[in-house]
């Protein structure tokens, strides 16, 4: 009987559980998580902070899920070492477990830059439920009404939004010349910036925090530009980095940042697999291998890893960065390459300034490679499909941004494949 | 090759015999002593089948025929190649009324003269293109309702009044082309057709058929081309537009 050990109870780990059970009903599955609760949704912590979600709804898979799938769940189990010779994982508490197949789905950890004073009370990163608990408690206790968020990416902005929900005035500090520079194009950033400003948020671009002042507790921050902001709360949200420190001497090969995997999600060690934010994935939109920390890719990779671990050979074709987020009441979606320019690239745009609606499509070699939707995201998934499935759009390019655009414009062949469910994220 | 003596045979018997032979794979059949038996080759299918008729076949020769070749050594009667789809009928004598009625494809070559309403309602469709060539003269209502195909009258013989064609030529014609070797007077024409000069392009198109016709009957193409042709075409392929109140 096969013994599966999965490290990490995020979307990758859970998708792997589902996939393994589809193929292997017998094997033992142990799921390790360093958190106190398995299968809670990390993206929801900003909603929890902003009181848009109740605690009971933080779990995206319930206790019954683990019973149904017969998974032995170990919470508070932080893995410190993997011994690939003896097929053992060692936990911080001194326990060890043996495995036949191991999945590393440890996700990412927040990146903390070397800034003076960062150890002070009132400085937070914000990626885990415990961060939310701590921060909520801190805000309550200290009556915070002004905060600085370092980092104008998605986590930073969702945190900003949550803080604003609590009536806190937020300063966003972003090193780049605009917020959301990594995911959106300039125009989209502008629309979001304006919307945030309208709601009372201050956005400082081309700037960063260089020093955190205060006693034991933060009282103000000093920016590179020399500006000083009085605050009792600093949230550092400048990105996450793969959580792979425990693999240092294991022999599992790492790339520039994350774990290197093949198209079956196998690492350099043949019975060890990896999936999710801790891996480097083939970015189909650029052809580069890099970490793309997004939920759909984590689920897909977890599923592929699970199938392969259980003996069903499927191949992952790579993923495309994509994000969907509603900020300041404006829904936005960004898929694939949205920031490219050049002679070989054709850009289609639609703008309606009166309603903050903005849409942009990026076409290269007759294929859609990127899409931005701001304000109106209706049926955006159709475009995502065209991007991920590499559909030639030359015959209906002119209609792409028409009001009635839909499946009816797509090639019959493609439509048929879609409807028959032939297009999956993996290949048999 | 099989020879059948048709004398005294009812058409039903004769045609049944022909069909049976064709079903068995016979490709060439010669019918002797044919005397008025109708429907010879009616509905016959198959490109490589050849039937030679010695004697005089009856009406509806080669009606609905689809592919075969029929050679008549003497005269044919009315309804020759009625609604024929493909194939070829070669008549060494005269042919009767409504020769080529409603035919949609194939060829009819008549060495002698032909009767009334020759080529009536002939039509063409895609690869189906009917061609009728009459060596001598024809009677009234030539090419009536004609909707497609090619019809040529050579006038190697003329009628009692020296005409190549009768009156009401091309009445109701709304498609196809009609060539007459010699002249035709305005009063002989139906109101839907107009006389045109024959262009080089036209000549190039019809010469292959004429040369085949000459080969079949031993005429000289050069002799035939010595005399000028006129071309008749309909004014419109919609002769009855603007007729109704909607």
């Amino acid at each position, binding site marked *: 009987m096969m013994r599966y050990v999965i490290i990490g109870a995020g*979307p990758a780990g859970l998708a792997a559980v589902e996939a393994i059970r589809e193929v292997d009903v017998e094997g033992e599955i142990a799921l390790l998580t360093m958190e106190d609760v398995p299968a809670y949704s990390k993206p929801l912590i900003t909603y929890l902070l902003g009181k848009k979600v109740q605690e009971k709804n933080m*779990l*995206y898979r319930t206790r019954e899920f683990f019973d149904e799938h017969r998974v032995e769940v170990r919470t508070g189990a932080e893995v410190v070492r993997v011994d690939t010779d003896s097929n053992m994982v060692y936990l911080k508490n001194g326990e060890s477990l043996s495995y036949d197949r191991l999945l590393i789905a440890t996700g990412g950890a927040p990146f903390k830059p070397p800034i003076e004073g960062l150890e002070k009370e009132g400085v937070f990163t914000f990626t885990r439920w415990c961060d939310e608990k701590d921060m909520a408690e801190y805000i309550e206790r200290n009556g915070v009404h002004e905060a600085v968020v370092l980092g104008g990416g998605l986590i930073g902005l969702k945190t900003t939004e949550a803080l604003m929900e609590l009536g806190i005035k937020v300063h966003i500090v972003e090193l780049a010349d605009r917020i959301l520079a990594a995911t959106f194009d300039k125009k989209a950033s502008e629309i979001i910036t304006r919307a945030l400003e309208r709601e009372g948020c201050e956005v400082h671009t081309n700037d960063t925090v260089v020093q955190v002042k205060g006693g034991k507790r933060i009282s103000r921050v000093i920016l590179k530009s020399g500006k000083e902001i009085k605050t009792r709360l600093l949230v550092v949200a400048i990105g996450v980095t793969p959580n792979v420190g425990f693999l240092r001497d294991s022999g599992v090969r790492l790339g520039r940042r994350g774990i290197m995997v093949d198209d079956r999600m196998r690492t350099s060690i043949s019975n060890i697999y990896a999936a999710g934010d801790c891996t480097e994935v083939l970015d189909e939109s650029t052809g580069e291998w890099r970490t793309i920390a997004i939920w759909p890719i984590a689920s897909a990779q977890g599923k592929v890893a699970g199938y392969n671990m259980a003996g069903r050979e499927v191949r992952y074709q790579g993923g495309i960065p*994509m994000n*969907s987020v509603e900020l300041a009441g404006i829904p936005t979606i960004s898929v694939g390459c949205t920031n490219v320019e050049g002679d070989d690239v054709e850009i289609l745009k639609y703008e309606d300034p009166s309603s903050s609606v903005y849409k942009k499509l990026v076409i290269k070699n007759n294929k859609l490679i990127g899409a931005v939707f701001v304000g109106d995201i209706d049926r*955006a998934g159709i475009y995502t499909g065209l991007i991920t499935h590499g559909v030639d759009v030359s015959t209906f390019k002119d209609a792409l941004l028409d009001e009635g655009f839909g499946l009816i414009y797509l090639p019959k062949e493609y439509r048929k494949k879609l409807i028959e469910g032939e297009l999956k994220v993996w290949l048999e | 090759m099989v020879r059948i003596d048709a004398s005294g045979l009812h058409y039903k018997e004769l045609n049944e015999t022909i069909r049976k032979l064709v079903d068995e794979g016979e490709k060439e059949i010669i019918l002797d002593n044919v005397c008025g038996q109708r429907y010879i080759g009616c509905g016959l299918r198959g490109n490589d089948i050849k039937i030679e008729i010695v004697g005089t076949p009856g009406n509806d020769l080669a009606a609905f025929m689809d592919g075969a070749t029929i050679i008549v050594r003497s005269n044919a009667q009315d309804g020759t190649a009625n609604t024929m789809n493909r194939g070829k009928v070669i008549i060494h004598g005269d042919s009767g009324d409504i020769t080529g009625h409603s035919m949609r494809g194939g060829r009819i070559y008549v060495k002698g003269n032909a009767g009334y309403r020759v080529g009536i309602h002939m039509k063409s469709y895609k690869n189906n293109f009917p061609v009728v060539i009459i060596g001598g003269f024809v009677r009234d209502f030539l090419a009536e309702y004609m909707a497609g195909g090619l019809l040529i009258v050579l006038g190697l013989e003329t009628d009692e009044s020296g005409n190549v064609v009768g009156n009401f030529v091309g009445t109701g014609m709304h498609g196809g082309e009609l060539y007459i070797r010699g002249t035709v007077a305005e009063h002989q024409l139906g109101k839907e057709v107009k006389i045109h000069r024959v262009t080089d392009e036209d000549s190039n198109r019809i010469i292959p058929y004429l040369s085949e016709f000459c080969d079949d009957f031993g005429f000289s193409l050069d002799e035939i081309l010595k005399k000028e042709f006129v071309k008749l075409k309909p004014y419109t392929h919609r002769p009855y537009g603007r007729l109704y109140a909607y």
Partner: protein
Amino acid sequence: MGCRLCEIHCITAHSKSKNIIKVFRYEVPQPVPSVIVEEKEYTTFAIQCRHCEDAPCIQACITGAMHRDPDTNAVHVDHEKCVGCWMCIMVCPFGAIQRGTVEKKVASKCDLCVDREIPACVENCPNEALVLVEVSE
């Protein structure tokens, strides 16, 4: 045939009053129809959730709101759990999920009219163009 009555009946079936005239006269906002009629030249079709076997919306859902009903295998949204992040809208290649309009802003999609025997769109299609097909695995 492009009459769009499926949309009308979908809205009615998911409205408060369930009365076709009242919905359109008094209910603001109206539910969004989960069946979308597309038209181009001579082609028309109605598209709604296909309840995909390997549903990308379930894979992408960060709350677990999008789930498969174990009994019917249909894909449903738990409106209480949904927070309106629109990940599902981003990944549905049919464009069959929409932003809901009534009360909380949550994903809205075809629920096969769980409280009816036959979905409203199927029952009311004048040309029987919409049919309910059960796919057994």
